[in-house]
């Protein structure tokens, strides 16, 4: 094999090639823009977003509320920055390390929301009929898992000791 056709291939510690087609890149941009539009100020009330703002103090709601108030804006800003960075670079043939890291984190946050909506469990994936209305969402969830895994591998291979 002359060429490395993995989805994401490390060309060096700060340079990564992204081998994705036009349609796949369009999906990546669209899901990030969709989640950005959901991440507004009253996001805590949206059930599908609960995995993005998890409890930090499992046994004390009062203490947890104080923690949530302290971190919420920072967490929201950080998520929005990652998703915007992915949407902005979705068509790039190469990414630097920081941008690929944002792909990994941003696309993982999309998976968390999709997985919550799909009620993903540890069990085997459900058998879906061809006309199941959730089939496209499952396909996107599966596709994003592949991209996140590819990003993890490429970043992990080039992790400084």
């Amino acid at each position, binding site marked *: 094999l002359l060429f490395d056709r993995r989805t994401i291939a490390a060309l060096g510690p700060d340079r990564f090639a992204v081998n994705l087609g036009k349609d796949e890149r369009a999906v990546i941009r669209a899901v990030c823009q969709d989640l950005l539009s959901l991440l507004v100020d009253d996001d805590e009330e949206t059930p599908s977003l609960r995995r993005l703002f998890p409890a*930090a103090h499992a046994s004390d709601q009062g203490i947890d509320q104080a*923690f949530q108030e302290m*971190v919420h804006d*920072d967490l929201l800003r950080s998520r929005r920055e990652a998703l915007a960075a992915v949407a902005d670079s979705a068509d790039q043939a190469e990414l630097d390390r920081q941008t690929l890291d944002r792909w990994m*984190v941003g696309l993982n946050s999309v998976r*968390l929301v999709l997985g919550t909506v799909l009620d993903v469990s540890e069990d085997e994936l459900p058998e879906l009929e061809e006309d199941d209305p959730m089939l496209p969402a499952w396909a996107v969830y599966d596709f994003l898992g592949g991209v996140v895994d590819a990003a993890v591998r490429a970043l*992990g291979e080039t992790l400084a000791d």
Partner: protein
Amino acid sequence: MERSIQIGAPPATLAERAALASVAPMEVELEEPDVDETPAEDRPWIVLVWNDPINLMSYVTFVLQKLFGYSLEKAEALMLDVHEKGRAVVSTGTKEKAELDVFRLHEHGLWATMQQD
């Protein structure tokens, strides 16, 4: 060993502390004081990561390497504990350090909580 950001000017937002911490990840202090003789407020806090069916095993392993500077072997062992036992202690320290660690784990989508040991 204290993180330099805990010395001097009070830490600003958690995001700023997280950005500083990510520049120089280091091993957490594992030495534990004698619990019986330690006042409650001085007892260390532990940070737990809980199993969830969405995050990929490879992703959880890499996030633990990235945030805490753990070796691949150590991060994989912790990930497997999370996966098989339902949870694992990934760091310990002061309340402020635990809050920062939980914030960074949440930023990465891991299901983390903190409690006093």
